[in-house]
């Protein structure tokens, strides 16, 4: 059994391609079912965020799985493979484990150490559990990944300063206004992004929330959540006069807010500073708005840039985090290699034990006059012999991390001792019946 990650992220693919291949939340379950239907995959889950689209899978046929998944991406999204193949990465085995651990610990994030990714992976994992597309291996892998993320968070300072984009926005607002107290925030758009950013500003001390949205009802309902006010979309300009911070995240295909409009607004505001945060894609605010005096305009990329500046000082912490990841990768890999050798070890032991028992019975039946003590001695002697014989090969098998070597040993053992083909799947079934999470005990 081999682990596989296939996907692309902010480092390998531009936003247009990421958007093309992303799975909308409401279609995720159906997409997952289609992935799971691929015969080459045993276990699978899909992670789809605005910065990455990835499928995690356990498979027996690695080449075929990669081929199938690429074809799936292409068919599902109706995009030719040529368009995005160069943007894909597909780490396998140990590399896949490292990749997943790094993603979960936010070492692979656009904003190093940002906390949202862990939640997103947990959601993806939960969905795969509900849909029963993840099994023992992903189960174990993801639990380890969450453990690694926790270690990285508690043992390094990666997550400390900032670093989510929203907290950068709060930091900037504080550099402009000094404090967020008594400040008014205007949200344009009632989507999740707006809500998230607003929540950060409110916890930073912002006092009043105004919400405007094309659909007035949604503005009202979001405003209620913050005990704020809804502003009709046509009266947005009125909102600018009251607000100190404006967060815009609509789906509008063109600019909603223009340079001249804001110049006039600033006159009415008596030049009181105004901080615009444009998290929409495509942008809602004309970039030249940032040139207006006492107006500060940051879009999502600017916020990322600032967040990254904060992180430069923390290269060392990242190094520490990588060491933790490496540590855990080694542990996990040795566990999951042992999954491959365990059936053989069990079979080998059974074979020897069978021989021992048969021969012992024969001997005992030839010598019925033996005392109980003598019988026990014989029992102990024979057990000791097979344990001694098996000790070296079993230790060697367990310690072999290299898959090719392990396969070689396994083949040799099966051939030399005529072991039955006891498959990996039967082992998994046995384990899953017991609902076993602590595998070491079971083995």
């Amino acid at each position, binding site marked *: 059994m081999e682990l596989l990650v296939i996907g692309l992220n902010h480092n390998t693919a531009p936003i247009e391609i990421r958007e093309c291949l992303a799975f909308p939340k409401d279609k995720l379950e159906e997409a997952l079912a289609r992935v799971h239907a691929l015969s080459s995959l045993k276990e699978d889950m899909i992670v789809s965020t605005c910065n990455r689209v990835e499928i995690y899978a356990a498979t027996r046929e690695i080449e075929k799985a990669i081929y199938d998944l690429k074809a799936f991406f292409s068919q599902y999204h109706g995009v030719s493979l040529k368009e995005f193949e160069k943007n894909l990465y597909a780490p396998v085995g140990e590399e896949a484990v490292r990749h997943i651990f790094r993603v979960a610990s936010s070492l692979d994030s656009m904003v190093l150490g940002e906390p949202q990714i862990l939640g997103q992976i947990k959601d993806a994992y939960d969905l795969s559990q509900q849909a029963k597309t993840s099994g023992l291996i992903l189960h174990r892998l993801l639990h380890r990944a969450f453990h690694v993320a926790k270690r990285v968070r508690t043992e390094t300072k990666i997550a400390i300063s900032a670093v989510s984009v929203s907290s*950068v926005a709060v*930091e*900037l607002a*504080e*550099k*402009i*206004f*000094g*404090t967020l107290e008594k400040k008014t925030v205007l949200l344009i758009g009632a989507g999740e992004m707006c809500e998230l950013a607003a929540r950060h500003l409110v916890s930073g001390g912002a006092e009043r929330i105004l919400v405007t949205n094309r659909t007035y009802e949604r503005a009202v309902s979001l405003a209620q959540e913050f005990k704020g006010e809804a502003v009709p979309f046509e009266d947005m300009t009125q909102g600018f006069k009251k607000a100190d911070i404006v967060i815009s995240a609509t789906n509008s295909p063109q600019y909603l807010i223009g340079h001249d409009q804001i110049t006039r607004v600033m006159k009415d505001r*008596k*030049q*009181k*500073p105004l901080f615009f945060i444009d998290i929409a894609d495509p942008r809602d605010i004309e970039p030249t708005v*940032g040139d207006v*005096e*006492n107006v*500060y305009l*940051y879009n999502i990329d*600017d916020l990322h*840039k*600032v967040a990254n*500046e*904060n992180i430069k000082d923390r290269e060392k912490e990242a190094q520490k985090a990588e060491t933790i990841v490496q540590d855990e990768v080694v542990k996990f890999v040795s566990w999951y290699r042992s999954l491959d050798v365990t059936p053989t070890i069990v079979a080998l032991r059974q074979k020897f034990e069978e021989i021992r028992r048969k021969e012992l019975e024969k001997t005992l039946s030839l010598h019925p006059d033996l005392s109980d003590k003598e019988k026990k001695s014989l029992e102990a002697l024979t057990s000791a012999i097979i344990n001694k014989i098996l000790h070296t090969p079993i230790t060697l098998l367990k310690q072999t991390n290299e898959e090719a070597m392990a396969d070689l040993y396994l083949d040799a053992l099966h051939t030399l001792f005529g072991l039955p083909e006891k498959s990996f799947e039967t082992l998994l079934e046995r384990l899953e019946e017991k609902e076993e999470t602590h595998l070491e005990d079971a083995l």
Partner: protein
Amino acid sequence: MDILFFKLATFLYLLGTFAFLAYILFLRGALSKIAVAIVSAGFASHTLAIFSRYIEAGYTPVTNLYESLSFFAWMIIALLLIATFKYKVRVLGAFLTPMALILMLFALALPKEILPLAPVLNSFWHPFHVVFAFLGNAIFTLTFCFGVMYLIQEHQLKAKRMGAIAKRLPSLNLLDDLSYLSLKFGFPLLTLGIITGAVWAEYAWGRYWNWDPKETWSLITWLLYAALLHQRLTVGWRGRKAAMMAIVGFLAVLFTFFGVNLLLPGLHTYSKWGQ
């Protein structure tokens, strides 16, 4: 005696400058506390220097360039300490201490003998005139610093760079507030300085206003700050424009103080080099 205290104060301001620079380099709170302690000690020594000179000379020691520079530096440090304790703008020391230090070093190079007071300066109004004018100018030095800090910080924000510099400077809002506040104190003091100067001029020279270069430049300075105050009050000027205007105003202050003394001959020449 006064010279010894003066030299000690200069030395402590030098140490204080280093401590403040270390503070903005490493951003350790302890360093700023040490810096403030050193500068406070320097200020105490400086106060003793001025006071002992006052006792020795028998007049308020603001009669020549050495005394004026010393007095100016003393006021700046006094304001620095007030601003630091009241508004917690810790970086301000990194701007003002070196400025005071330069004034002190400049003064050190000048003749320092206590001379009998020129009859024209021996007036009830003269000390008032000088103290008001210097206090006003010292406050404008702060306005200037807040303006410079504002422009730097605003540039960082507009250029979307939130690095080492932005981290060390206070928020735009605080800088603008302090700039406005200092203007509100500085302007009346400058006005009083000019009025008391006119009154004194009437005694000394027989006329309220003589259009001597110092007077002319003081008037220009006054007009600049009056314009800034007016724009802030009525048009709602703030931020960048106000900061730039405060910088222009301060250039006029500097010229009135140094330029006129050194370049333009006039009635105020007793505060010229060594005379």
